[in-house]
């Protein structure tokens, strides 16, 4: 059984009050997520990631298409027992303390009364908020809110966790912690479906990713495959002999003794030789981190606008 | 069609649609029931400035002016209630109290209160005891005004049927300088002819002649008309009884009575309509709605007018 099955899902927003125009935020999405995967849902801002998640959570109703989670259609209330959800930029009842918040959510997820407080404490410890359990959420920083949000998404031990941009707005340490947490959840056997617009977040973590642009699915697969297709460039950094690669005609940046440039994959061997010949010392030769923008530039046909005027 | 189908997308929405229709209907029906079953209530009638002191402060010492305003309000209030065929006059007493507290010498207010506080609903507030107190208060503040003693006697006689107290009041009136000559005869009238129509007629006639307030005059006039009808009915029923004694049967029409020499013509009520002969020699008016206050001649199964009706208004206009 697949964890999530989406077929021909579409959502069109009505915008404007008097002169209604339609905005197709999601077009004909068909996608399958396997049980036990960490699945990255990638796309630039406005691609339709949040829209997809809201449809899956039953917060909005699709214009067309169907979706099922663990074999049940999403309109089946039973589905909600096995999923957890972290919305984008979450905000919580700020008059509650972190502990009260988690106990409340536990009660809404039908967690038995006697387990609620111990689970709340465990979740808070797990996301590093153990010390702030009795602090009202109005005093929480953005990062703390994000952690509380993850805690509430897993308090009832769901089989699938949906996270909408879980790393956005966090500092590097926070991102790292969230990444570790996602990995842990997956190790426990949970399926994790998370959206992001930053490729590097997904790269290290995901088994598979889907890339979305302007409401259309661009591709699904293993991250490396997608990147290889996109980039095929390497960054070379060396010390001394800063003119060694002038023959390749690339732009070289020099800071003190260190030189840096980006070359084609095919030129890698030639570049190593050239640096060695010139008496320089190779410091690093790395594939260029695939910028998602590059991928989209490649996958977005000009004029494929999502706006359609209604009659 | 597809729009409704979409709205009723699941069992919850279908059930709530059914509940909505049912409960909305039920509540409209209950609202209707409540309207029918509840007596008329003066829901928003609240007099916020209830105390003379508060009014005095707010009127910046112009108490005479304030008294006039409250007096006007009292009369208007009574008029509105009367038109609305109301059974409750909750604010009449507080308004009058305020008026005379602001100006203790406003005799018309005492007079007005004497009649309309005392008379039973729908012609007044139905508080004869309060009316007595109110007039006594007026007498205390205006001991030299014979009219207040007269009103006191009037309430005692007409509303409370306390003939001795009435006689006392009239005696006190005839001790006050400036009283009209007819006042001297009143105490005797009380003791000799207590409770008869004639005495009531004298009282209402005097009231009618002396009333300065239009509402009071109308009221007295309708009272006199009613007494007239009551009187007619008593006389006519005595004649039908005589007829029955002579012939053994009650008359079925006025013509028989005329033929028997008991009547000179067909008797008519004050609105010009002939009286009707009912079974067993009873005499009734054609339309009791014309005669508020009548106690006799009401056709069986009907009621006297509950208030001043359009019909009785006509009577007043003709007059």
């Amino acid at each position, binding site marked *: 059984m697949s964890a999530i099955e989406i077929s021909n899902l579409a959502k069109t927003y009505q915008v404007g009050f008097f002169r209604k125009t339609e905005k197709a935020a999601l077009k004909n999405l068909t996608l399958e997520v396997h049980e036990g995967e960490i699945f990255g849902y990638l796309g630039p801002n406005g691609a339709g990631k949040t829209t997809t998640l809201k449809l899956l*959570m039953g917060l909005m109703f699709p214009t067309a298409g169907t979706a099922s989670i663990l074999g049940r259609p999403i309109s089946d209330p039973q589905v*909600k027992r096995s999923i957890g959800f972290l919305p984008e930029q979450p905000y919580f009842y700020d008059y509650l303390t972190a502990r009260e918040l988690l106990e409340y959510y536990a009660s809404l997820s039908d967690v038995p009364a006697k387990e609620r407080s111990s689970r709340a404490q465990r979740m808070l410890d797990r996301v590093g908020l153990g010390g702030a359990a009795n602090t009202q959420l109005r005093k929480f920083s953005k990062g703390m809110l994000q952690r509380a949000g993850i805690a509430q998404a897993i308090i009832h031990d769901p089989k699938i966790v949906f996270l909408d941009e879980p790393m956005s707005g966090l500092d590097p340490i926070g991102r790292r912690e969230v990444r570790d947490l996602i990995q842990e959840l997956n190790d426990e056997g949970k399926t994790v479906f998370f959206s992001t617009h930053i490729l590097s977040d997904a790269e290290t973590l995901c088994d598979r990713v889907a890339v979305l642009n302007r409401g259309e699915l661009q591709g699904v697969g293993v991250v490396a495959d997608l990147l290889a297709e996109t980039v095929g460039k390497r960054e070379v950094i060396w010390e001394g002999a800063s003119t060694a690669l002038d023959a390749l005609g690339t732009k070289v940046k020099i800071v003190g003794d260190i030189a840096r440039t980006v070359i084609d994959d095919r030129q890698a061997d030639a570049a190593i030789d050239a640096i060695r010949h010139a008496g320089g010392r190779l410091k690093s030769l790395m594939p260029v981190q695939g910028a998602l923008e590059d991928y989209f530039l490649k996958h977005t046909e000009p004029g494929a606008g999502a706006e359609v005027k209604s009659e | 069609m597809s729009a409704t189908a979409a709205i009723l997308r699941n069992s919850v929405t279908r059930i709530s649609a059914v509940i909505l229709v049912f409960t909305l209907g039920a509540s409209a029906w209950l609202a209707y029931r409540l309207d029918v079953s509840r007596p008329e209530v003066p829901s928003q009638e609240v007099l916020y400035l209830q105390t003379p002191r508060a009014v005095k402060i707010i009127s910046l010492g112009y108490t005479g002016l304030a008294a006039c305003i409250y007096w006007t309000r009292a009369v208007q209030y009574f008029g509105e209630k009367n038109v609305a065929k109301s059974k409750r006059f909750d604010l009449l007493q507080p308004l009058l109290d305020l008026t005379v507290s602001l100006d203790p010498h406003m005799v018309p207010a005492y007079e007005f209160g004497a009649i309309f506080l005392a008379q039973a609903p729908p012609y007044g507030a139905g508080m004869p005891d309060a009316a007595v107190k109110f007039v006594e208060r007026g007498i205390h503040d205006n001991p030299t005004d014979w009219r207040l003693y007269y009103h006191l006697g009037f309430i005692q006689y007409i509303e409370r049927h306390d003939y001795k107290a009435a006689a006392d009041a009239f005696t006190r009136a005839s001790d006050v300088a400036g009283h009209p000559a007819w006042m001297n005869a009143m105490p005797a009238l009380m003791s000799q002819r207590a409770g008869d129509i004639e005495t009531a007629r004298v009282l209402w006639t005097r009231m009618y002649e002396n009333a300065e307030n239009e509402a009071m005059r109308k009221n007295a006039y309708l009272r006199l008309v009613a007494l007239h009808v009551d009187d007619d009915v008593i006389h006519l029923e005595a004649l039908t009884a005589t007829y029955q004694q002579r012939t053994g049967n009650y008359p079925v029409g006025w013509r028989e009575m005329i033929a028997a020499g008991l009547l000179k013509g067909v008797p008519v009520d004050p609105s010009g309509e002939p009286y009707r002969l009912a079974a067993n020699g009873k005499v009734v008016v054609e339309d009791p709605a014309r005669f508020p206050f009548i106690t006799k001649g009401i056709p069986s199964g009907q009621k006297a007018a509950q208030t001043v009706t359009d019909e009785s208004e006509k009577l007043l206009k003709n007059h």
Partner: protein
Amino acid sequence: MTTSRIGHIAYNTFREAVRDRVLYNLIFFALLLLASTPLFGKISIGLERIVLVNLGLTAVTIFGMLISIFIGIGLVSKEIDKKTLYTVLSRPVRRWEFILGKYFGLGLTLLVNTFFMAVGFLAALLYIAHGFQRSDVQLLGALYFIMLQFMVIIAITLLFSSFSSPMLSALFAFGYFVIGNFAEELRGAANLLDGVSRAIVLGISYLVPNFTAMNVISQVAHSEGITGALLLQNSLYAIFYSAAALSAAILIFENRDLK
């Protein structure tokens, strides 16, 4: 499970209200007003009790109504705006459970508030009257009717806030309260019209909440009894009307895209 979820949402709604400063401000002013009613009473000879009952119960009604509206309008829209609703509805909570939970939570809030205002009111009465009379039981009846009005107003506020903005909801709900108090007058006015306009006005007058029948303040001020029939009819009416408003709210909310 359904009932326990509704209960938890209700409790959380109550908790939100009692931790809100607006509530305390309103209660503070209500109690201040109630505390000052004996002053009004003191200067009115013989009418203290009537003045106090009228003013006191009117104050309880108005402040309770303000609390219902001010807290009620934000109940749903705030949860949508701040996206807290997303984390609730992605759980086994049905949308109709959420609406009912909000309703009972606000109802509980109003019950507690009304209790405190009633205590303040009765204390003021005790202060000027130096004791209670038998007929004061009627006051409890009047307070019960006031509470019924709140339950209806809450349902209506919830209905409006299930589809419109807080500002509009407040306007609508307040307008409804005012119209509801003139329901009978509206029917009176309808009887002066004829034809279609009469039918329309009459129809509207039976659809707006009938608060006139629930307002017995001036009756109890004069120590007049509340009949058992009125008690029953008003209770039923409040239940039906609230149920109608709530099912309309559910109907709308179940279909709403939470964008």
